[in-house]
């Protein structure tokens, strides 16, 4: 196997291949950064070009795009509060407050470095332990997906806007929005109000742009007539790069935990990276010594989110390469590319085609390094974007929001939906609602519904639905985690009280 690793590395460092890899990373960053363009689209567009290339070269280029896109989506998340893809939602929580404080470069460098870190960790796992992990990934069935979705929903208790009632309300709204369109099971058409275009449901990215990006523009630029998008202008410097990277290196638990969460959620086929970053952010805030820093602009929050969503990418390739089951939409495109080159994922990838497979894996690995490099130097350029006066920047962003909403499905209805959501988002932000629970509900609703109905069907056939859903090893772990996560705020409040109690006692003693 080590021979294959070296052959793979040798392949990647062929001049031609490294050029294609760098090109791929650049393209990926662009596709990731523009809301409405996704990693999946970037890959699908390039697959025909790889027909004429040698299999290794083509796959190395695809690896570059995939890894680049996983970082690229953090750029608009940090600068303008708009996740480039749904996977970067959690990046906005701390990324945008950072750039409001004039620390956009800190956020960008933290995102680049932790993306690389997550990607690297997951790649090492992929190269060393893919076959056994793939078998574990098959243990995820309908009950596990249901509990995973419920666990995801408990995150609402952490991303709190101060009022758990408001958060639950917002989460419920998200769940209800997720029922629009075709039912995942049963195929009934629901709540389309006669618009045939709504049969496809609400596109996630449209909701993201509407709820995250528009309210921010309306609020800060139009509402308060700010001259620039952030109060403090950014002065990028090399010192920042050094500081951020050395600070993150000194937090191995945070980085490793985030990467592990990303890898694990990535290899459960279908769950994808959308919730990996949320779960990781949630855990980072829970276990941190100063949880109150989260949400106000800390590089720890950005790092937790980005390390997880980048680790998800190689994670989703584990079931693809070993079993032939794509764990995410981009992985599905890569499956198509492998088949067109005459390879059959799931059978011969680690034997007959080991050289090509390891070129691909090493491509992912080297792409991860390139991301730090390009991201750090790119931060000088990207960070300055928010120094542009609002009267130029705001129209440009508005233009991009329309373009992005339209591009995702070539649908004008999506643009109108985006505007409606933007206005709802603006009003609700005035009422101190956080948009994250809405989007979380929208993401997790279909998972929960599908998992529940499938479990009831399969459980009904086996005799007892309850025992089918509960008495399975992963289900039990997830149920335990749901309880823990849901009750955590109570525990945290109690601990806080106890600490304050101690402090006041000490005060009394003094």
């Amino acid at each position, binding site marked *: 196997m080590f021979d294959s690793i070296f052959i793979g590395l040798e392949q990647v460092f062929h001049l031609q291949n490294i050029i294609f890899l760098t090109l791929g990373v650049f393209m990926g960053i662009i596709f990731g950064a523009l809301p409405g363009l996704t990693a*999946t*689209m970037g*890959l*699908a*567009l390039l*697959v*025909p070009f790889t027909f004429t290339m040698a299999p290794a070269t083509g796959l190395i280029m695809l690896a570059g795009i995939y890894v680049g896109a996983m970082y690229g989506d953090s750029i608009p998340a940090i600068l303008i509060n708009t996740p480039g893809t749904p996977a970067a939602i959690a990046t906005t929580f701390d990324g945008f407050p950072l750039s409001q404080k004039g620390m956009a470069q800190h956020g960008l460098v933290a995102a680049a470095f932790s993306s690389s870190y997550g990607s690297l960790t997951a790649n090492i796992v992929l190269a060393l332990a893919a076959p056994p992990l793939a078998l574990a990934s*098959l*243990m*995820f*069935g*309908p009950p596990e997906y249901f509990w995973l979705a419920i666990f995801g929903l408990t995150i609402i208790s952490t991303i709190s806007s101060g009022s758990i009632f408001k958060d639950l309300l917002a989460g419920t709204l998200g769940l209800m929005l997720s029922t629009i*369109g*075709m039912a*995942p*099971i*049963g*195929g009934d*058409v629901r709540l389309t109000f006669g618009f*045939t*275009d709504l*049969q*496809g*449901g609400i596109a996630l990215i449209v909701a993201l742009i509407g709820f995250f990006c528009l309210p921010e523009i309306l609020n800060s630029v139009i509402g308060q007539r700010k001259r620039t998008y952030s109060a403090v202008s950014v002065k990028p410097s090399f010192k920042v790069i050094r500081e951020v990277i050395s600070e993150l290196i000194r937090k191995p638990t945070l980085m490793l935990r985030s990467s592990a969460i990303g890898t694990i959620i990535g290899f459960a*086929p*279908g769950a994808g990276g959308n919730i990996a970053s949320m779960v990781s952010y949630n855990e980072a805030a829970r276990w941190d010594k100063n949880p109150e820093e989260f949400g106000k602009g800390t590089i720890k929050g950005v790092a937790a989110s980005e390390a997880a969503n980048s680790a998800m990418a190689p994670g989703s390739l584990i*079931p693809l390469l070993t*079993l*032939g*089951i*794509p764990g995410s*939409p981009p992985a*599905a*495109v890569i499956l*198509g590319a492998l*088949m*067109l080159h*005459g390879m*059959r*994922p*799931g*059978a011969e990838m680690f034997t007959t085609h080991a050289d090509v497979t390891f070129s691909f894996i090493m491509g992912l690995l080297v792409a991860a390094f390139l991301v730090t490099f390009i991201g750090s130097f790119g931060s000088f350029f990207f960070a300055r974007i928010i120094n542009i006066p609002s009267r130029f920047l705001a129209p440009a962003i508005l233009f991009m929001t329309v373009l992005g909403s339209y591009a995702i*499905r*070539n*649908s004008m209805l999506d643009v109108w939906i985006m505007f409606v959501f933007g206005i709802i988002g603006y009003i609700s932000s005035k009422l101190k609602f956080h948009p994250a629970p809405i989007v979380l509900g929208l993401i997790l609703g*279909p998972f929960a519904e*599908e998992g529940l109905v*499938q479990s009831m*069907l*399969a459980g*009904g*056939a*086996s005799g007892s639905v309850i025992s089918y859903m509960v008495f399975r090893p992963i289900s039990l772990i997830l149920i335990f985690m749901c309880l823990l996560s849901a009750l955590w705020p109570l525990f945290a409040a109690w601990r806080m009280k106890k600490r304050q109690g101690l402090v006041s006692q000490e005060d009394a003693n003094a």
Partner: protein
Amino acid sequence: MKNATRLFTMLFCTLIFAVPNLFAAYPDRPITYQIPFNPGGQSDVEARRQQPRLEKILGEKVIVQYKPGGGGSIGWAKMVKQRPNGYFMSGINIPHIILQPLARGNAGYKTEQLVPVALFQATPIGLAVMKDSQFKSLSDLVAYAKKHKGAVTCAGSGTWSGHHIAYLQFQKAAGVKLTYVPYKGASPSVAAFLGRHVAALWANSNDLFQHRDKIRVLAFGTEKPFPPMPAVPTFKDQGYNILASIDRGVGVPPKTPKNIIKTLEKAFLSISRNPQVKQQMLDAGFVPLEMDAAEATAYIRSKVVEWAPVVKEFKK
């Protein structure tokens, strides 16, 4: 005389300006090829394979445009509203275009509004179990299911889809009751099956072919044995009259002129006849088709007649 000249001039002008399309050779500008699914899916792979060849034959650019959602219905609803001038065509999939209007009432289009140009690929549907399953043959499964009503779970992609209708037809033909667990797409259902969360799987030939080492295909819904796996019997061989497959083709909006359909039909069929294209399809577990517009229309009609009563019976 003066009037005659005027009349002639008017006629001449009308011919030149008002109906230039009569004289311009079709096509003279880029053609949009809509894929009503996400990029990277099998319909997209086929379109991308055809795109450069179509451009060579037709002499114009072919632009692939995605319009996913509703299992394809959003794209097809869009197509029936397009101008029938040959510059907009869309991938069509059977049984989707037949079952969606039957099951949903208003899917945004009617089956007969999608005018087929050609069908170029069939994906036979098969029923499979794991290699170590107690069911060594279809008759084993039927015998067990007869004794244990609803105990055999089978996964498939979607409701009122090709897999679902094959399941309904099989239940009826064999006089058994299984439990169908629908998944959102083929790959999640394959994953659930390989993870042993269900006992059997309805799947497309390419997926079954891909996982052939781990599974046992009990039957294919084909007339003749499926070429890449000739040892697997068909449902018909075993006494169940079930023909099930997902067929891919291309269609144009209603009222598209005959000559335009002919031009496109010729282009698509010449690609289908290309031995290299055929071999690539077979290698991936598909069956190449060369069905022209007339055959495709007749085929779709026969399927409407076959499926309408099944949907009516099971849709409460």
